[in-house]
């Protein structure tokens, strides 16, 4: 099993969700996060006080897939999330030791 963590632009979430649904991805978890990579922040001015905002709003999407679905899922996700500009985000992949379904204690890939 592999975990895919993708940090994406908030406005691409709907596209990514639809694309993953179309290839049969069963579930995912998202959270609102703030961060930056190479993309520069922006400047805000309040009554003469200038603030540089480095951490920009992003969406973090997490899903765990069986090994044989990894390439397909990552390809679909990256293509759906891409605008071609700085700030599109990153995808991180890691191995998962175990998965357990709380409802009936199913284990392994069968629990996904």
């Amino acid at each position, binding site marked *: 099993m592999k975990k895919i963590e993708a940090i994406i632009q908030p406005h691409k979430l709907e596209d990514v969700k639809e694309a993953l649904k179309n290839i049969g991805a069963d579930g995912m978890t998202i959270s609102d996060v703030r961060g930056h990579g190479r993309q520069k922040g922006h400047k805000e001015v*309040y009554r*003469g*006080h200038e603030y540089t905002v480095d951490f920009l709003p992003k969406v973090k999407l997490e899903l765990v897939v069986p090994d044989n679905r990894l390439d397909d899922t990552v390809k679909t996700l990256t293509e759906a999330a891409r605008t071609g500009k700085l700030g599109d985000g990153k995808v991180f992949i890691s191995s998962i030791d175990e998965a357990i379904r709380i409802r009936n204690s199913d284990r392994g890939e069968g629990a996904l």
Partner: protein
Amino acid sequence: MKRLLLAVCLMALPAAGQTPPADAAAEKLAKLEAAVASAQSAGDNAWLLTSSALVLMMTGPGLALFYGGLVRKKNVLATMMQSFILMGIITVLWALVGYSLAFSEGNAYVGSFQYAFLNGVGLEPNADYAGTIPHQTYMVFQLMFAIITPALITGAFAERMKFSAMVLFMILWALLVYSPLAHMVWGKGGFLNAFLGGKIPCFDFAGGTVVHISSGVSALVCALYMGKRHGYAHEPMKPHSVVLSVIGACLLWVGWFGFNAGSAVGASGLATSAFVNTHFASAAAALGWSLGEWLKNGKPSVLGAISGCVAGLVAITPASGFVKPMPALLIGFLAGLACFLAVAVLKGKLGYDDSLDAFGVHGVGGTLGALMTGVFATNAINNALKDPSGQPLALGLADGNAGQILNQFWAVLITWALAVVGTLVILKVVDLAVGVRVSKEEEIEGLDLSQHGEEGYNLEG
């Protein structure tokens, strides 16, 4: 219509020929006069009660929202509370002695205890102040001004003053600075009262000196005395919700019609004049600030536009019942620009931390407005001052009375002096009694939790 009247008169002629008893005619006339007076009183009183409610709305929720949006999330409740609690404190104080010290006859600088506990302040009009409305209406209208004035100061020490210290400070400030100043400018026999026997006749229609310079300058003193917030200039201190501030500013704009047009103490043409001037100045000032910001920063901010509108309202306050509409536009526009420069340039250079710019808006805008009143005041708008032969007196430079600018200058100077000295002494006393600032830990935690044991936003339930 005229023909009809003529016909009625002709028909009445034979009856008049019968010479009714003179006392019957006199009685009829007296009844008629009473009916006219009652009708005028009804109209004036309706407007003044409405205005009183509008002015209270400026403090809560107007100012509470305006200031509440400008602070960080952890201080939103404490900031709103500083405005709200004054609606309680000042009201009680006003009923006990505040009104008396401001408006009863005393010496040239402060009233007496004649109206203490509202003794003698009933439903009969007080001819010195407002001859057509109950004295209590005038009292409650003035109360709303006494509430918002100290509430304006809270912008300067937002996010760092102890609640107990604020309460003590405000009680002393209301008694030692506000009431005497209101007496000097508006009270009978007051030193600066142009209409009721002042030595230096100052024109302040609705509170440029009494409300705005006094609060703005006191705010500066507070900011300097208390020092900067922890982390000022290197930690972000962005307004947590400019949305709340926009709502607050719009309520202030509407409430200000009661503030200025209500100060005509009647539903008169003068009230219309003040209403129009108020609106014009506010609109022009929003444009003035926005223009300044657009030129300097490349973008006109929403916070800038609403700050400008408030600056214009401040500046037109003393002038609103004395000037024509075109000067009102000019006063507003200049106030928008001047307050923008004071807040965005001057404050940064001088380095004081007036958290919500109470001085930059009320001190600077109020001073500008008071001086401009001396320039543009004209008896074409306000003819209440007459010479012995009944001719209206020249008011400002616009009427050829250049000396009025000097009178206004003295009034500004006296107000600045009273605000600086009074506030400094009161701060020192409060500091010795309870300490003015919260601890560093409490400040970092936020005043909502440390002073009130609550949080403003529990959105996750």
